[in-house]
């Protein structure tokens, strides 16, 4: 048996609840024992549109949090922005609906063995997986600061319960409509210079991940980022979601963000070549 996708299964999950939170939907799925295989950073691939849909591809969503102790047994929470046709369909699913899910997929955020000072940075809807991560880090004795940024306040997802698992929650918006005006990346150089950060975990738009990688370069700070490239399959067979990654010998290869990611070491990604083709293999 292969080790790729080794803990993932295709199954039907029941929608336990579907609540609107600002511009987002917080969707809770009953997934039973499978919850034990889900780690922060993993994602799910969901069939959308019903049996006769003209949408033939699954949609990938980061797992926001999981719970083994809820009233419904194992459950997972997804934070979904109803922007596209697929996510709109998912957001329209009511309590009791059966959803065709493949989970868990992809790599997970590395959890340090010793307590560290962790900075979690989320851009836009990218904050979703950081809440589950914050809970795990907190339970390991880490200091957890979370900085969330977006173009405008409406795009910030920061539920009340999320604040319980972080020491500091700061919000940055480019239009100043919520929190501080500016970009979420702006305070990072100062925090690194003051020695306040050991590990940065990030999730959000690729330009933000690239900016963080460039800020961190040359410091001792480790940067784990969850990348996003559009996927057709989510299980490693379509080769659409690739991005250029350096290996230990400095050779660049096109890695799949579904099975070699979504969580990658930001220093390994060849950010300047994303969307381009590396030079031909010699």
């Amino acid at each position, binding site marked *: *048996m*292969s080790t*790729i*996708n*080794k803990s*993932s299964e*295709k199954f039907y999950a029941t929608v336990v609840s579907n609540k609107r939170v600002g511009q987002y939907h917080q969707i809770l799925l009953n997934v039973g024992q499978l919850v034990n295989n889900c780690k922060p950073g993993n994602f799910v691939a969901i*069939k959308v549109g019903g049996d006769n849909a*003209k*949408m*033939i*591809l*699954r949609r990938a969503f980061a797992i926001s949090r999981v719970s083994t102790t809820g009233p419904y047994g194992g459950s997972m929470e997804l934070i979904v922005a109803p922007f596209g046709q697929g996510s709109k369909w998912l957001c329209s699913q009511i309590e009791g609906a059966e959803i065709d899910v*493949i989970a868990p997929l992809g790599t997970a955020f590395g959890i340090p063995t010793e307590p560290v000072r962790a900075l979690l940075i989320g851009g836009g809807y990218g904050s979703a997986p950081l809440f589950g991560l914050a809970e795990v880090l907190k339970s390991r004795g880490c200091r957890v600061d979370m900085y969330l940024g977006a173009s405008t306040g409406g795009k910030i997802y920061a539920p009340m319960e999320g604040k319980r698992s972080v020491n500091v929650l700061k919000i940055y918006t480019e239009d100043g409509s919520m929190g501080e005006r500016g970009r979420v990346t702006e305070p990072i150089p100062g925090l690194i210079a003051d020695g306040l950060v050991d590990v940065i975990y990030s999730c959000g738009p690729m330009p933000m991940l690239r900016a963080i990688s460039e800020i961190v370069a040359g410091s001792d700070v480790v940067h784990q980022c969850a990348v996003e*490239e*559009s*996927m*057709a*399959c989510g*299980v*490693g*067979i*379509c*080769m*659409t*979601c*690739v*991005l*250029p990654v350096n290996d230990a010998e400095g050779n660049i*290869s*096109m890695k799949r963000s579904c*099975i070699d990611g979504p969580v990658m070491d930001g220093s390994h990604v060849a950010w300047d070549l*994303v*969307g*381009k*083709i*590396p030079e*031909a*293999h010699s």
Partner: protein
Amino acid sequence: MIDLSTTLGNAWFPSPLFTASGCASSGKELAQFIDLREIGAVVTKSVMSKPRHGRPTPRMAETPSGMINSIGLQGPGIDAFLAHDLPWLVSQKARVIVSIAGETVEEYATLARKVRSAPGISALEVNISCPNVENRGLVFACDPDASRRVIDGVRKTLGGELPIIAKLSPDVTDLVSIAKGVVDAGADGLALINTVLSMVINLDTMRPHLGGKTGGLSGPAIRPIAVRAIYQVHEALPNIPILGMGGVSSGRDALELILAGAKGVPIGTASFGDPAAIITIQNELIELLKARGFTSVAQAVGYAHRPIAESSETP
């Protein structure tokens, strides 16, 4: 009991349902979801002589009942494939059809020479129709003479043992003449259809959406094109086995291609939506064959071509 077995040249397969090249990588990814021994064969992703990065992202756009891809034959190169991917498949007891792609007639021959000595291969697919190459002039299958030269070179290099299946493009004016040409040059079978050349324009950037600008359309949107292509080629060359593919996502679709003349049905884009699709389709196909009174897949191959006079409605 339905006899699902099928043959391509001298190669035997327990089921007519295969993976489609480029839609199963080299099988490892799907092994978590299906037992690779239960399907006819794994047709591996077309491999070239050297490792290849492929085309820039974005590589994919979903379209109504379809998708366009622009991968550009990313892959490990034949040496790494034969050293790692093929032995793994053989160790899993999967039957394997290796798919090769080249930029020159000589590259195809070189690939065939390397594949010839590798154990555990049932057949060789020669992909002369990938639409995602830099120079459309390299789509050998759009040129009858170039198609023949590639297959001729592979046939001479390979000798007579391993069946050669030429994968053809629907983007031609006269598919039957291309098919006849490659059969004359030594192809034992034909795989049709490859994806259909296509484009999506992004309304935000107001430019072609894919990094490679054009891509290959696949999925249910192209199934009727596949049915037509298989029907026409089977009519002209009834003794040449056809691997028929294009948007099959149910047992009903698989049977449609078999009735048109396909002896094998590779499943491609449907596996992206459901990695266990091949098994589901196989089970559905068995029921549909039973319901129509067939006792084997072989009886149904090309059944849509039977003369009107003979069409008493039980097979």
